[in-house]
Structures are given as C-alpha cells and as structure tokens.
C-alpha cells in the first residue's frame, strides 16, 4: 500500500517523478558524458586558427591562367582515361611505358561521378560557345548516361514506372575483362534486372553514394538548362529516384529486396535536407505535378525540416570525416535546387551557423561550397571573411601546381612523394594532447570501460593521432577525392599502395582540383585570368 502524508503530496509526487525519470536521467548523463568527450576532443580544431599570412601563398603569386590550364587538362584526362563506362574511376598505367594497364575497383561510383558531374556542369556554365563547351557537353552526356545506368541496370529500366534502387557501380558482360571484380562473389554484387539480367550491379548503396548522386542531379538541373537531352533524362532519373524513395519510405533497398540501412529520414532530427532535396528536385523537374511540391512544403513546414536543414555537428572531425563530404553535396544541392529566395536564404543561414566547424579545416571543397552559397545571396551578408576563405581555396589549389601534382597520380605527388609533417616540422607535428588524456580515461579507469566501446566499435578513429594543424594538399594521399579525408590525420607518410603493385602509376580523376576550382569560376570569384 502506498501511504503518503497529504501535506507532502507534492514533494512525494515530485520524488516519484524523479525516481521514474532516473533511467532517462542516467541515460542522458551517459550520453552527456559522450557529448563532453566529443566536445573536448574536437576543441582543438577551433583553437588552431588558420594563419593566411604565414601559411598561404601570396595571392598575387597564384597564377590564374595556370589554374585554368590545370583544370582543362584534368577534364581532358577525365574524359580520356577515367570514364570508361561513363562513371569516374581510377586508372593504372605502366610506370615505364605510360601505357594503360587496368581500371581500379571502386565502392563509390555514384558519389564520385555525381561530384565530377557537378564540377563539369559548373565548367559548362562558364565556357563560351565553342569546341571547349562542346567537349564539356559531351562529357556531361557521358556522366549523365552513367548515372542513369546506376538506376536503369538494377531496376530493369529508367523512369518513374521502375523501382528506385540506386547502384554504386555497374558493369556489362562485355566489360567483364576490365571489371572482373564486379563479377566476383560479394554481398554487394547482384545481377541486373530484366534486359540487364546479365549485367552486374554493386549495391548495398550508402548515403555517400546517394549524396553525390543528388548533387550531380541538382547541378545538372541548375546549370544545364539549355540541353533538352540532359533535362529529359534528368526528369526520368529524378522521377524514378523520388518515386522509389516515396515507395520505400525513404529506405534504400539492397539487392535482396530488404533495406540496407541507408535511409533519408532524419535520424534524431538531423539530416532533414535529404528528403527536401529529393522532393525539390522532383518538384523542379515536374512543375505540373503538384504532389511533389505539396510534399516538399509538408517536409519543410510540417516536419520542420527547414529549421535545421543544412546543419551539422563536429563529431566527424574526429571520425568518419568523409561524412562531411557527401553531407555537403546534399547541402550544396539543396541550395542550388531551391528557387524560393527566402527558403534558400534560410538554408544558407542554417549552414552558416555551423560553418565554424570547418573554418580551420582548409577543406577546399567545403570552403568553395560556402563561397557558392554566399554568391547565391541577393545581398552579401556573409558572417565570415569571404576573401580569406577564397584565398584559402586558391592556396590549396595552387599547391597542386607547386607540388607538381598534375595529373593526380602516384608519380608526382601522393604516395611516397607527399610532403610529410615531420620534415615540415614546427607546428605541423603538434598532436592534440587531449587524445592521450581520453585514452587514459577509456583504458585506465573503471568507469572509462563503460565508454570504451565508443572508440572500439562506434567511432574507431576517435583515439587516432590528430595533428592540430590542417594538412596542405601536398600532404594528402592520392585518392579519388582529397576533400573527404581528415585534414588533421593526413601526415604525408604514405606507403605507396598502388593498384597493380610496383612499377605502376595509379591516377585518379582530377575532381579534387576541378570541383572547387569550377565553383570559384561559376560563382564569379575568379576568372580564367584573374584570381583577385
């Protein structure tokens, strides 16, 4: 029997509520400690400010014409060597003869092709009519075709009447010799559907892929308005993707007909920009289909997506940094797709509130996206110093030239040739001391053992060495896209893992350079001849 003094009812009721809430309070305390650890570990990235005067090349030493030449050369090599099946991919050459040897494996065909398409669309938008523009148009057609196949092959066709499963990569039977890995047994590999049943698709598609893919669609929709073929096929792709997501409640499906875990619904309130972008692309592509616009409004206003769309946290600074890259693809895509100036400004303002996370990362792609957003504002009201950010991007791009890293392969910069931090010395080798502190907490205390699963299983990079100063381009490893790597972990001490082994040169598409470069060009920050 519960016996209470009536004069103490309020106090006892409050005590009962408190006791009832104890499990939630305990859980909240536990999560709070995790948040505190994260905040403490990320604090270094705010403390070591970028120092342009000390670290950047003087602006007048950066040659705009040379940057333009590099961009053109990389686009040419993209067309010639990195799009064999209309998806971007790394390529291996014989180090002695320079002859083509093989194409690399990839898990991110959709992501990097989408990014490359976005870069090419921006290039297309600034080129004057002529052969260069025709070449650009041809490359866009190739990339759009490849991206369309990522929907067509797994689903048996292209258009809204087909399911919306998106592949990471594909290969036809005829391509088996060059892409034999696609025909190996792997839980991600399945046959295509219908007329493509002999083709192979790589599934278990992640949000990385979807993010890059959506950026490609958004960029093509925004920049290539004068090409009916592109707009026509885009409509089919967007309708198939949007209807597919609507049919599965925004769950990406795996090849066995079950969800693979990637889904676009906001998790704990964050990530609302994904559904918004999908539906905005559909509303733009089908202005007469009011249901798309209605759903977009519903997500924006009723699910309150517009309040925190394009926001982010700083945990990825510690682990899974690549999440920032494809996250920014969606952020950028949404700002491009949104044609309502009030909503666009809201999304930019949301983003700007988080930009301090990346302010000292020296990430040229993220910085370029922020510059692009600010250029889309009717009035310059940036909360950050845009000329300094532009200088940051240009300095990083210029390092491609200074380190002779064009094309982006293992013969010039990168593996075995990158500048390592030890030789650079000074503050380049300062490691965040808080890592050791928390290492001791996790492994040196009894209470820490209750949090040990976080570095062991959840964020495996949590206790990895992080330098307090963000890396320069010449310290990065050769990779598909430099800007999805953690700039505080790049140490320049790369071991030279090259596809094909010794005697080979591994070359990646030049999107690491072209994506940020063409943003600066497309949004008027630089020209082919002027950087200031």
């Amino acid at each position: 029997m519960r016996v209470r003094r009536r004069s103490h009812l309020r106090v006892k009721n409050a005590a009962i509520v408190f006791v009832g809430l104890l499990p939630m309070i305990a859980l909240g305390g536990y999560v709070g400690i995790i948040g505190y650890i994260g905040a403490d570990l990320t604090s270094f990235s705010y403390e070591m400010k970028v120092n342009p005067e000390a670290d950047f090349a003087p602006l007048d030493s950066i040659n705009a014409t040379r940057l333009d030449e590099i961009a053109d050369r990389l686009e040419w090599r993209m067309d010639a060597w990195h799009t064999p099946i209309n998806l971007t991919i790394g390529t291996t050459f014989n180090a002695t003869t320079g002859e083509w040897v093989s194409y690399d494996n990839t898990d991110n065909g959709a992501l990097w092709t989408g990014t490359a398409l976005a870069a090419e669309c921006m290039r297309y938008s600034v080129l004057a009519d002529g052969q260069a523009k025709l070449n650009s148009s041809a490359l866009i057609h190739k990339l759009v075709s490849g991206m369309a196949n990522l929907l067509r092959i797994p689903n048996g066709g292209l258009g809204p009447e087909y399911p919306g499963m998106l592949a990471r990569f594909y290969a036809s039977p005829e391509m088996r010799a060059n892409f034999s890995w696609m025909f190996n047994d792997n839980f991600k590999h399945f046959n295509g559907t219908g007329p493509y049943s002999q083709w192979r698709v790589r599934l278990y598609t992640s949000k990385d892929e979807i993010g890059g893919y959506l950026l490609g669609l958004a960029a093509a929709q925004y920049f290539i308005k004068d090409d009916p073929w592109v707009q026509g096929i885009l409509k089919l792709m967007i309708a198939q993707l949007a209807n597919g997501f609507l049919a599965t409640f925004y769950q990406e499906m795996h090849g066995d007909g079950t969800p693979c875990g990637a889904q676009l619904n906001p998790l704990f309130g964050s990530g609302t920009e994904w559904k918004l972008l999908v539906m905005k692309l559909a509303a733009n592509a089908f202005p007469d289909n009011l249901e798309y616009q209605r759903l977009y409004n519903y997500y924006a206003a009723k699910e309150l997506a517009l309040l925190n769309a394009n926001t982010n946290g700083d945990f990825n600074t510690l682990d899974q940094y690549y999440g920032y890259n494809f996250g920014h693809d969606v952020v950028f895509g949404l700002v491009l797709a949104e044609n309502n100036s009030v909503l666009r400004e809201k999304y930019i303002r949301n983003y700007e509130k988080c930009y301090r996370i990346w302010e000292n990362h020296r990430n040229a792609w993220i910085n370029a996206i922020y510059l692009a957003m600010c250029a889309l504002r009717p009035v310059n009201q940036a909360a950050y110093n845009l000329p300094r950010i532009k200088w940051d991007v240009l300095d990083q791009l210029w390092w491609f030239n200074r380190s002779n890293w064009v094309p982006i392969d293992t013969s010039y910069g990168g593996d075995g040739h990158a500048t390592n931090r030890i030789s650079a010395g000074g503050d380049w080798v300062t490691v965040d001391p808080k890592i050791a502190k928390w290492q001791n907490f996790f492994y040196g205390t009894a209470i820490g053992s209750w949090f040990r699963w976080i570095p062991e299983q959840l964020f495996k990079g949590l206790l990895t060495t992080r330098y307090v100063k963000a890396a320069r381009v010449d310290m990065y490893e050769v990779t598909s896209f430099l800007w999805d790597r953690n700039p505080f972990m790049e140490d320049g001490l790369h071991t030279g893992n090259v596809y094909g082994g010794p005697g080979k040169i591994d070359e990646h598409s030049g999107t690491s350079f072209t994506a940020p470069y063409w943003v600066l060009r497309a949004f008027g920050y630089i020209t082919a001849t002027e950087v200031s």
Partner: protein
Amino acid sequence: MRDYIEKNSTPATVDGLLVPDARKKTLKYLFLSIGLVLVSVSVVLMIIGVDLGVSITVGLSAFNLSPILYFLVLFLGLWLTAKFFTIAPYQLRENSLTRRSVDQYRETVDRQVTFFSLSRSRLAATLLFLTIAIVDIHFLTLHIGTPADMEIGGAYNGTGTAVVLGGVSFFYPVGLPLLIAGVSLAIYLAFARFYGRFARSDNFLYFHEFRIGVPWLTEIPRAHLEAVRYQNTHLGPKVLWACFLVPYAIMVLQYGIPLFNQPRAETDTLPIMMTLSALGAILAIIPLLFWPQDYFEIASKDMLYEMWLAPTMNMFGVRDQIIRLLGFSVLPRPERKRRGLRRTSLSYERTPTTSMMSGISPTQREFTQVLLGAILLFVGILGAFANLFFGMLFWAGAATYGTFLLARGTLSDFSNRDGTKVTQAEDGAFQYVRRFFRKFQFVLFPKTNNVTVENRARKLEAVDIIAIAWIVALGVYQTVLGWIITDITIPLLLWEAIGTTLVLGVIVLFVVAYFIVPSSHVVVKSATIMHAIPVSPEGTAWGTLRHLKSRAKNAWQDPASRKAVLFRVIVLMSIGIIAAVVAAIALFV
C-alpha cells in the same frame, strides 16, 4: 511487536497510537545512518575509481562491473536513507513488517476478505510482448553489421539492415523495445502480485499484503476516514504505455508496410514481422489502457492511502466484500440474468435516510472526450501515413494523446442506463456510484459539510496540460510555417493550408468544449477535502458539445466561472500566439 496490540481500542487509544514512538525513532535513525554510510562509501569508491577486477564482455568490448556495483550500493544507500522519511514515527502501523496471523490486528475483526492479486491484463500484455519479441529474434536475428560480418549476432539471414548502413538487424528497433517492455512488465508483475487480506474491526481497517513472501500491514483508524474512492477506471501513470506503444506502432508500420512485395525480395518475412510487432503493440494497448486494475484511495485528514489490486479468482465476490468493508452501501456486482447475461443496473442496500440527489442524470453520456480522442488519433494517422496536415512531432503527440483520451473517455465519461447514482444520507454521508458494463467508480464521503451541483471547468491532469500545450503549440507552429511558405496561387497548396487550419480549429474547439467551458459537477466538501465529480445534468445526456454556446454564456455571467474560463483561455491563446510568433520569426533567423 506483540505488546503493541491493544484489543478493543477506543477512539482515545486510537489517537494515542499517533504519539511519536521512541523505538520507531531509533529505527528511522538506524536506517538513515546505514543509508548515509553506504552512499558515502559508494561515492568515495566511484571518485577514487577502485577497480574490483570484475568485468563482462558484451559484443566485442569488455565492461568493468565495478561502477555498476558502486551504483547498486549507492541506490541501496539512497533507499535506506529514504526509509528515514517514510517509516511512520508512531505506533500505528503503516507498511509495517508483521507476521501473517490475524492475531496481529489490534481488535477482533468483524469482516475480512482474502484474495490473490495478479493483473490478468498486464499478464496478457506481458505474454504478448514476450511472444512477439521471441518470434522477432527468431526471424530477424541478433545480427549486427554488414551482411559479411559474423562477429555479433551470427550470420546475416537476408531480413535487412536497420538504422544505418551496416547497422543492426531489424530486431533491434522492432523487437527489442517489446522485449524490454515484456521483461520489465514481467518483473513488475512478479513484485506486484500479492496475497491480500483486508479486514475491518470496530475502529480499524487492516490492509495486509503478502508480497514476495513478506507480510506488510497498514492500519487505518476508521474514525479518521474522510473520503474513499474505489474504481477500476483509474489510469494514473498508464498514459506512459500510450506514449511508448502508439508512436512505436505507427513508426514500425511506416517503415514496414512499404516493404511488402519489394521487387527483389524472396520473402516478406521482414514486413510481416514488422506489421505483426506493430499490431501486437496496438493489441497490447487494449488490456493495458482499457482494462486497468482496481484502485482505491482512502483519505484521512492527514494521510492518503492508495493501492492497486487485481483479484484473480472470484473477482466480483472479492470486490463486493471490499466495497462493503470500505463502507459503501451498494452492491457493485451486476446480478445474473438468465443465460448468463448481466443486468446492468445496480442493487442498493437502501436505507430510509438515503435520498437521490436531484439535477443529475442517472445515465451518463459525455462524448466530447472520446470524440476529441478519435479526431486526434485520426489526424495523427493522416499525418503519419498520408503526410497530410501535420508533421511528425504533432502526429506523434496527437495519436498518443488521442489514444489516451479514447481510453479515459470510455472509462470515465459513460454509465449504463440508470447506472449513475448520487446519494446523500441524512447524516451527511455522500456516495457516488457509476457503472459502465464492468467498469465502476465509487466515491464515499462518510461526513460532508456541503454537497452541491455546479458548473465548473474540468480538472486538468498533468498529462492534459502537457499534451494540450504540445498539440496547440506545434499545431499553430506548423500551420503558420505552412502558410508562410505556401504559394497560395497553387490551389492544392492553398487547400492544404486551409485544411490544416480548419483541422486545428476543430481540435481547439473540442479542447475548449471539454476542458474550458464549465460543465456539471457534483462538488463535495468535507472538513479538509473538496472533490468535484463530473456528471451529466438531468435532461442533457449527450455531453458538453450540445448547448456549448449557452453554457459558455452562462459561464461568462458567473464571476467565479468567468475567472477560471478566462485564465484557461488566456493560457491557451498565449501558447498559440507565442507559437505563431516563433514560427514567423523562425524562417528569418
């Protein structure tokens, strides 16, 4: 303890039992001392971080059990410390450990009832939860990771991955919540079941509970009784079941239903299990919310005694006896009619001094709460499954509160035909009896100062205040935000905005009709208690929706009602206005 017994107590000796007792005081301080020592030891051990060297491996990580032991010691210490505040300082026994024997009682009992209490509705829900969870484990597995991973939970069996890429099997978001609910409920059931012996003597009521083998006795001096309420319509904290089960079921269905007939799927195991789990949760709402256990409260001048019970065998007979023991002059059990049908009217132990109160309908019909619940549930379902009118935060709250209102309305707003009896005896004793099929609610005031029938605003429970504020704030917020971004030149979008506004208006209207505009109550006042019971006034058996305008007008003319109505209207409008302003600003900051 034997020397405490004083047979045939008189009121004077009853009062003497409330004099502070030295031994009880010593006991209280003993608990306090031991409790504080344990609390201090645990805190010191935690701060120093002493490692007892005991660990357990879960998944791939080892967890040191030392902190858990410290926490257990801490909670034990806190529990003992709390005893200092809960042990009665006088001889009268309140939850005192005693022997089982009736000899323990101070006086010879003249009436007693023994029973076994085990909630069958909770048991049904427990079995349902556990069965579904076990089936979920079997079909969805405990797998964690990508299909290539084997380390945790065994091999992937082709039933999908949830939450994130390479995340967990669908058992974790779908079956695990039900498993936790089932296990928690099973543990609760084990502790809540008890053998009970309630008894009455000349001067005392005795409540003897035998829980997990330990007998606890509480004595209540009958002379101190001021009010008694016995019912099986009280929900109390059961609203938490709605808070868990309704959003859970809706979200699982949201994710699960689209997975049927996926082009590449070889089986529908996953969507079937998701649908089954959601339906199981919905089914469990029925016993958990619509079949609450019996609950009684006894109030004296200083104390409040409460108990949940669920007699399992001879339920009606036990209830009869408890009701008599508590002093009601009514037989709650419907008398058997031919072929097992039950007669719905009540039998009374009529006394010549008892008279029925006038102005109160003997048939209670109040549809407003049930209708509001249905509307909220329907709007919630529309939002969740058709993306219509309101978004997630609103629909989750609306569907949850709507379900709760449906349950509470069904339990408390209706009676059988002639099933409500409000009586007052010449000696001032007041009795309220309402019966609706197997549901009953009895209220007894042995002595009253004043009993009236008057219009007053309904009492708001904490859940009402929170839910209404939540629904109105989010409803207004989303509606205003919707209007701001809507291109009103597009008819479909315009109609959606208008529709949202109208739906919100209807909801607010019902809230006003039920919770703000005064309605008929029997107001009973005793020496220290004022208790208002909602009733249907005579001749208006269809609830507060009818004559809303005239009732509002009457309330406005009555100064006392006007003040209460104004306060609630102002609070409601303030919530709406603040939400609207915040929504308008939100887009531009």
